[in-house]
């Protein structure tokens, strides 16, 4: 019995588990540990038009049950991603979700247009929520009308479905979600990191060279679950959930909240084998809980049967 097969716009997933963008590079490093074809999908590192070096180091700082990062969207740029990374990834039987970033609307549009042509890119993830870049970005992720416009523009040029990645650093997440749904988004991914900071006890100065960073890991899971619970009831597009996922139990909690698939970020750093481990443990846990298929869990926190037609295989 296949308990894990899930279909989302543009994505036929063997299972609903995928590494989150920025926590898996372009897959090369983790391919040393396991066959990437085991994954439901791969969300690759943010891609911008030009190569970016990102922020100065230190770029990470540990926090209680979490970490801050301020990588600053370091990436080799659109051309190299298309000419080197995506072709390398095409050896694996796994759909790629390309994380699209930029400072200006044109940047997003250019990256989306080009990267969506790659054969193994099955969906885009519009990163309007990176807390670690100074220019642009913020407005896209916090002003509904701006997010909607950007989504619309990207939808116009993308050959594949577009998921918009929401920032949790807003007063009203439902409003943001509805705006990008209105803009034509095919799905949502949430949440990106919460803006946080740590200071060094000895110097009094920020540990991160960038001063602030994005908080990820188990610490933020309750915020993510709450936001997905709220948003999944207010929109009719599917959500890929993320934030502190470490185990099969966490995945089920995300489905209960209303997610249709789940991404794993920080946990990869703690255990490089975390994704295949979760994929292996999920069917056992589902069976134990009495579910024939993972989609039965979806939305159970707010709906008796937790199942919507569109994402069941």
């Amino acid at each position: 019995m296949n308990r894990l097969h899930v279909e989302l716009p543009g994505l036929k997933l063997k299972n609903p588990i995928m590494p989150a963008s920025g926590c898996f590079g372009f897959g090369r490093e983790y391919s040393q540990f396991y066959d990437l074809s085991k994954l439901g999908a791969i969300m690759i590192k943010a891609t911008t038009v030009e190569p970016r070096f990102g922020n100065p180091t230190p770029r990470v700082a540990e926090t209680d049950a979490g970490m801050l990062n301020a990588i600053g969207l370091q990436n080799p740029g659109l051309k190299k991603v298309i000419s080197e990374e995506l072709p390398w990834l095409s050896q694996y039987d796994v759909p790629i979700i390309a994380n699209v970033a930029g400072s200006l609307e044109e940047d997003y549009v250019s990256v989306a247009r080009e990267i969506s042509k790659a054969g193994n890119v099955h969906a885009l993830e519009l990163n309007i929520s990176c807390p670690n870049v100074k220019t642009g970005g913020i407005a896209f992720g916090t002003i509904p009308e701006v997010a909607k416009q950007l989504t619309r523009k990207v939808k116009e040029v993308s050959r594949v479905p577009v998921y918009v990645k929401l920032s949790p650093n807003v007063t009203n997440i439902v409003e943001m979600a509805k705006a990008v749904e209105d803009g034509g988004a095919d799905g949502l991914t949430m949440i990106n990191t919460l803006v946080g900071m740590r200071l060094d006890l000895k110097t009094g100065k920020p540990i991160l060279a960038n001063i602030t960073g994005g908080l990820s890991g188990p610490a933020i899971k309750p915020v993510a679950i709450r936001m997905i619970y709220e948003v999944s009831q207010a929109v009719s597009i599917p959500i890929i959930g993320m934030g502190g996922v470490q185990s099969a139990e966490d995945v089920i909690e995300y489905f209960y909240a209303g997610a249709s698939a789940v991404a794993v970020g920080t946990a990869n750093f703690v255990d490089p084998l975390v994704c295949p481990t979760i994929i292996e443990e999920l069917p056992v846990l589902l069976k134990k809980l009495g579910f024939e298929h993972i989609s039965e869990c979806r939305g159970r926190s707010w709906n008796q049967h937790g199942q919507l037609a569109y994402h069941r295989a």
Partner: protein
Amino acid sequence: MIQKEFCPIISQTEIAEDIFELTVKACLVSQIKQPGQFVHIKAANALDPLLRRPISISSFDQENEQFTMIYRKEGRGTSLLAKMEPGMELDILGPLGNGFPIEEVSSEETALLVGGGIGVPPLFELSKQLVAKGVNVIHVLGFQTESAVFYEQEFLKNGETYVTTVDGTYGIQGFVTDVMGNLRFECIYACGPTSMLKALEQHYSDKKLFLSLEERMGCGIGACFACVCRLADDPSGVSYKKVCSDGPVFRAGEVLI
């Protein structure tokens, strides 16, 4: 190949104030390529602390499948580590990175090994391997103060060894660089605080010089871009190396420190 393994602790000893020597049994020893590589350790099974800690391999024994680390008890992770006892298991990822190239010195030559504080440990395996190869080895080991000094005897067995302390409570007072002027050598291998590495780079750019860098890490395997440094020669402004997977050892002049 990098392995993730639960390694039983064989021994743990405090060898200087807050400095611990920890030996574990590990299959991953068979994968070690060079002195100067490191491992990434999870100090607790629980979430506290969350991230792994990078610690250098200070020596290893292929035959008995065990390796030793020397670390300073600092913050949360290393404090937890210091409480662990023989028989307990440690979640270790490794070996990681690229270490010191011993092929850069030949057997007639002299190598100078310069260590500062907790940068000393990886030099020990390096020293052993160089000596085994017939290289003449000189060690200059810098510490803050007497109570922080460790492994002097061990290094002495391999060759000439100078110990400096900043406060002069042991050995020669001053910095490692204060001793080096009088020594003759063809190649320097160094690990220690950034200020020390910078001083070496400035004064010994004419020599073969290999530096082991430190940077805060996320993944430890090259995936997260936490630990990058810029190339010294970087016309595009975006070229980089990752300390965890390209380093931690770089040839002086290759990257900006």
